[in-house]
């Protein structure tokens, strides 16, 4: 919304932005990061969704109206631009101290996630840079909302800090490319639902680097999965600017932990004759691929039983679909996107596969069998603040599939999942148990976005030299 104001100002048109009290600090930071620190703000006192009609009107007339008129007619004298700000060069030493002093310095400057970091020395950063042929100064992109440039050098520095190994660098670069892709919408990493980016690694590199795809998948504890997941959050903090307010841009009302990187049990997929997740994303089974998407809701551990696929599908539709994804489906409809991941236990996947079900058949079953009342979805969206959502209008305008506009009956049943092909299935977890879990995304914000991992020419030699003898 401040982005729209900035576009208007750059087109030569005066603007004012209406912001509620709890977001004023963030608005000031965003204005500065957009390069227009004196953008006019009109404060809505309190929480607009909690006020009665009468109180709402009173606040608009007594507070917002005069603030809008002032903002459009009087210049701000308090915030002025500073032009180009000088900041440290890549190899500049910004601090020198003991290990403990370095930790304190990084905490004090909000350069850490609150956990100890590996100190980013030039020597450590250079070890990461050996795993790419790219120029350290190369700008991969800029990351909103802080609008800072993300370079190959930055990727290495934050990879060091997150506790990654140097040989993870090709994965970190692919992750960085996803984060700067406008389709991913990194600018919304700090939106109030408090979603987290989740990285899924497909292809042979997962096995080669020791990513866990079996028992305890998505549990912290394996260096590859844990540190790569932490790296993604570190970039979102340090380059995109999403640290917790008041000093930063993160406005998660109630957040969640950074996500451990997910890897698929591709051997199980191949043995069952199923496509791998990487293939589902349009790549070859021999490609190593990073996919990042938002995760907002995690389902209960979903135990399904029986030797018939229908028995499992019915329970997955009930728990992962209606009960878990159903609540957020209304807001997702208002943003015309919904991309859940179902992490299917290998023992469950096998029941489907041996009975001739493909991943597409399971997707189709879930799409057809997860339904909710239209008025319930619209009610959830309204309460979430999406007050301009009208399901029938969205269907008429092509923002939702026709199934959402087949009648105007508020009690009609509409699909929880907007398109079967948007339901993602990853086979992972303990082969010795009958459990699956759903990871629900935040609609348009953090849509699944993939990049192929590029390895340096002498990868095998470098990998052998980098790893301890016990790992080779």
């Amino acid at each position: 919304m401040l982005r729209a104001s900035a576009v208007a100002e750059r087109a030569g048109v005066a603007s004012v932005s209406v912001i509620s009290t709890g977001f004023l600090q963030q608005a000031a930071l965003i204005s500065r990061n957009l390069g227009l620190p004196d953008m006019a703000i009109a404060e809505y006192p309190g929480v607009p969704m909690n006020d009665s009609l009468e109180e709402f009107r009173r606040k608009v007339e007594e507070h917002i109206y005069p603030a809008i008129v002032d903002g459009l007619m009087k210049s701000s004298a308090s915030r002025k631009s500073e032009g180009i700000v000088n900041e440290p060069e890549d190899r500049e030493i910004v601090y020198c101290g003991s290990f403990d002093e370095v930790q304190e310095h990084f905490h004090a400057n909000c350069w850490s996630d609150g956990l100890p970091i590996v100190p980013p020395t030039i020597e450590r950063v250079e070890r990461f840079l050996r795993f790419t042929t790219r120029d350290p100064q190369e700008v991969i992109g800029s990351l909103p909302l802080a609008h800072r440039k993300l370079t190959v050098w930055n990727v290495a520095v934050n990879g060091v800090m997150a506790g990654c190994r140097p040989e993870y660098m090709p994965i970190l670069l692919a992750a960085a490319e996803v984060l700067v892709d406008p389709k991913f919408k990194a600018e919304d990493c700090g939106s109030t639902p408090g979603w987290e980016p989740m990285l899924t690694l497909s292809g042979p590199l997962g096995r080669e680097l020791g990513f866990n795809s079996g028992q305890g998948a998505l549990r912290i504890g394996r260096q590859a999965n844990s540190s790569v997941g932490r790296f993604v959050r570190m970039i979102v903090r340090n380059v995109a600017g999403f640290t917790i307010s008041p000093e930063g841009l993160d406005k998660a009302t109630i957040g969640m932990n950074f996500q451990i990187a997910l890897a698929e049990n591709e051997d199980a997929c191949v043995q069952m004759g199923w496509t791998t997740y990487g293939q589902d994303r349009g790549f070859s089974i021999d490609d190593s691929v990073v996919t990042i998407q938002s995760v907002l809701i995690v389902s209960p551990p979903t135990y399904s039983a029986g030797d018939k696929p229908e028995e499992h599908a019915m329970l997955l539709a009930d728990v992962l679909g209606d009960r878990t994804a159903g609540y957020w489906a209304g807001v997702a409809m208002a943003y015309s996107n919904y991309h859940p991941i179902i992490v299917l236990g290998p023992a469950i996947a096998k029941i489907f596969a041996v009975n001739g079900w493909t991943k597409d058949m399971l997707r189709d079953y879930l799409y057809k069998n997860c339904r909710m009342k239209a008025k319930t979805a619209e009610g959830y969206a309204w309460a979430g603040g999406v007050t301009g959502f009208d399901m029938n209008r969205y269907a008429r305008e092509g923002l939702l599939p026709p199934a959402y506009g087949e009648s105007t009956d508020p009690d009609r049943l509409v699909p929880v999942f907007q398109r079967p092909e948007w339901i993602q299935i990853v086979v992972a977890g303990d082969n010795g148990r009958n459990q699956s879990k759903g990871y629900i995304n935040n609609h348009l914000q953090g849509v699944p976005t993939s990049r192929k991992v590029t390895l340096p020419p002498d990868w095998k030699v470098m990998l052998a030299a980098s790893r301890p003898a016990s790992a080779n």
Partner: protein
Amino acid sequence: MSNIEVVWPLGKKANPETDTVARVEDFSGKTIAAIWDYLFRGDEIFRIVTEKMAERFPGMKVVSYEVFGNNHGSRQHELIKQVPDKLRQHKVDAVISLVGA
């Protein structure tokens, strides 16, 4: 224990700072528009505010948020790019951007 020399973990700013454009001296006969993210009752705010402004500034014209579309929805990037052209097309003098909450 020896000291450790460390480098900076942030990226450099991509946008140099500038000031906003001149404000509007008088809205009489001028055109005001809304750009709305379809959130938090922004349509109601815009209606109430422009009704009061129209009483105070004779001849003030209003351009609806519908002209600009939902700038927070699935077409966000495409619609934001269209904003400058639409502002020129409708001869807009000032914008109210709604609602951050």
